[in-house]
């Protein structure tokens, strides 16, 4: 019973929501505009730092979130100005490298008194004000088969806030997808020069898309660190690659794709790992190995998906048919 609860609990876990948010941002970059952002984790980490550090120094929640968003916007501008006029590969390289730079600077010993170095920032330093805001009573609650703390760490309160954020971002995305602004972005994805010849300023639109997607990434970072501590190494390259996996799994250029992709990936992964843990005795495979094996199995499943359903779960096959 606890196994089933654990597996299904991933469906609405805060981390699932965080990845969904990051993937929605990436969807604006890649699915809508065709920008290859290979460093979404950089936006997330920067957002998390912006939030946690200001919280540590006693700022209120609102200005902390605002500061996190501001950092991400400035970061997007810095990355975008030199690269957006060049080809798509340049943005991919620069975002990948910049995300690593953010992580390495964050964990360097010289920054210890600001970022906490490689140990990061402990949860009690930045989550208390968020937890105090909760209208829920103290203690734990059980809903159907799930029991979580109401307010502390991996809590119901965080789940509510995280999924409200996801819903809000998905709504914004939906509005944008169906608007003339979204149409221009999709046009840029298809053919930049054609859009230019019709009098639209391509660089401006790309910059807007980069910033908006980055803001969603920063929010994702905040949600990501709230149930745990802020550790720079937990927001490294792998997070970017999971985000890409989620986007492609759910279906790029769809509204619900990133959310569905995130739910499916985490439920699947937990299911594989939990069943292995129960069915295979630990003398044959240790729990460390199960962790790795879980990813291998998911990787194979994803390969099959990309071969047999390249448009993702929700994508439109017809759209993929034209490459010219």
């Amino acid at each position, binding site marked *: 019973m606890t196994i089933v609860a654990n597996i299904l609990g991933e469906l609405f876990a805060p981390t699932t929501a965080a990845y969904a948010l990051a993937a929605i941002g990436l969807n604006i970059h890649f699915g809508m505009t065709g920008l290859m952002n290979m460093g979404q984790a950089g936006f997330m980490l920067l957002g998390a730092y912006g939030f946690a550090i200001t919280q540590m120094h006693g700022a209120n929640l609102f200005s902390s979130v605002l500061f996190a968003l501001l950092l991400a916007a400035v970061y997007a501008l810095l990355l975008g100005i030199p690269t957006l006029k060049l080809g798509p590969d340049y943005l991919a390289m620069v975002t990948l490298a910049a995300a690593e730079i953010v992580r390495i600077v964050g964990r360097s010993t010289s920054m210890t008194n600001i970022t906490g170095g490689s140990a990061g920032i402990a949860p009690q330093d930045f989550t208390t004000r968020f937890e105090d805001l909760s209208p829920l009573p103290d203690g734990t609650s059980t809903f159907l088969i799930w029991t979580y703390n109401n307010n502390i760490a991996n809590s119901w309160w965080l789940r509510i806030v995280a999924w409200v954020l996801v819903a809000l971002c998905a709504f914004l995305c939906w509005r944008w997808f169906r608007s003339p602004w979204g149409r221009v972005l999709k046009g840029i994805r298809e053919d930049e020069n054609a859009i230019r*010849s*019709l009098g639209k300023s391509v660089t401006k639109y790309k910059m*807007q898309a980069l910033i908006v997607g980055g803001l969603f990434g920063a929010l994702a970072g905040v949600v990501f660190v709230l149930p745990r501590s802020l550790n720079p190494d937990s927001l490294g390259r792998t997070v970017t690659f999971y985000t890409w996996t989620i986007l492609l799994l759910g279906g790029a250029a769809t509204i619900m794709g990133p959310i569905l992709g995130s739910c499916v990936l985490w439920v699947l992964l937990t299911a594989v790992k939990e069943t292995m843990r129960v069915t295979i005795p630990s003398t044959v495979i240790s729990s460390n190995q199960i962790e790795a094996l879980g990813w291998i199995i998911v990787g194979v499943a994803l390969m099959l998906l990309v071969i047999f359903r390249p448009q993702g779960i929700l994508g439109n096959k017809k759209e993929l048919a034209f490459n010219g």
Partner: protein
Amino acid sequence: MAENNKAPVDAAQRHDVGAAPAASVREPFYDIARWGTKPPEGEDLISTAYGDKVTRDLAFVENKPGVHKPDPILVADGVVRRFGGMTAVDVDHFEIERHGITALIGPNGAGKTTFFNLMTGFDVPNTGSWHFDGKDMQHVHPEQVARGGMVRTFQLTKVMSRLTVLDNMLLGAPDQPGEGMFRSLFPGMWRRKERENREKAEALLERFLLIKKKDDFAGSLSGGQRKLLEMARALMCDPKLVMLDEPMAGVNPALKQSLLDHIISLREDGTTVLFVEHDINMVRHIADWVTVMAEGRIVAEGQPKTVMDDPAVVDAYLGAHADVDLGGDSVLEGLEERS
């Protein structure tokens, strides 16, 4: 067997009787008049004021390269573009008459497309200056060029494959407030403009015989249909000068005729047209002025008749049989006689 024979009989009867109810008759597939390719009737010109004026004005212009014209909309001076050691474009002086239909012809690799790219900001010349409607256009970005009213199409067609035909058209519309990031979130601010644009787009699609395709992905269009879509899209913003790079390549002859009428009617709306075309009949039919380019330079300019009788042009570009229908028997006879 009887079933198979029925259709032609029906068709024949219908022609005889003339009043057979259309719905009950099985439509023969070979009824060519019903193909979706039949162009709409030619435009009824409301007036020919601009056409007459241009003809009158150009009648007094000398037929030599780089000549000054009474009312130029685009003036280029000393525009040179080199690719490595090769000079692709080297234009001393060139003017395009306002409201005129100017044809730019010349052999492959003459530099016509490169000239288009230079004028519209997609490429930067090594030296030179050019003015559009009195404004200096050096260092102006392509999007600003287009917003200024100079819109071009591409020889290698550029359509947005994974957008619908209608969306492609709507992207051509200028001044849609919903194209701002924040305003796009409030449909109330752009719905009305969107509706107007849609009506305009549908009217143009009707004209270009693409209305049935309006909800299909543009990537599913045929080569000729893409050319048509691109041209229709360029007309969405009512440009002052539209530059068409081989607009009729791959378009069927009947539709070509009808689109030529459309181009002529564009002139009466105040649009100036510059087009590149290898089809000499089309040039002869609609151009007010013909410019010949070869190896990057403008080698001849003038009234269509004069230019096409110019022995140098005939020799270098048109070929000896320019006036002859190459499909006709006369060519074969000529060849046989010679051999």
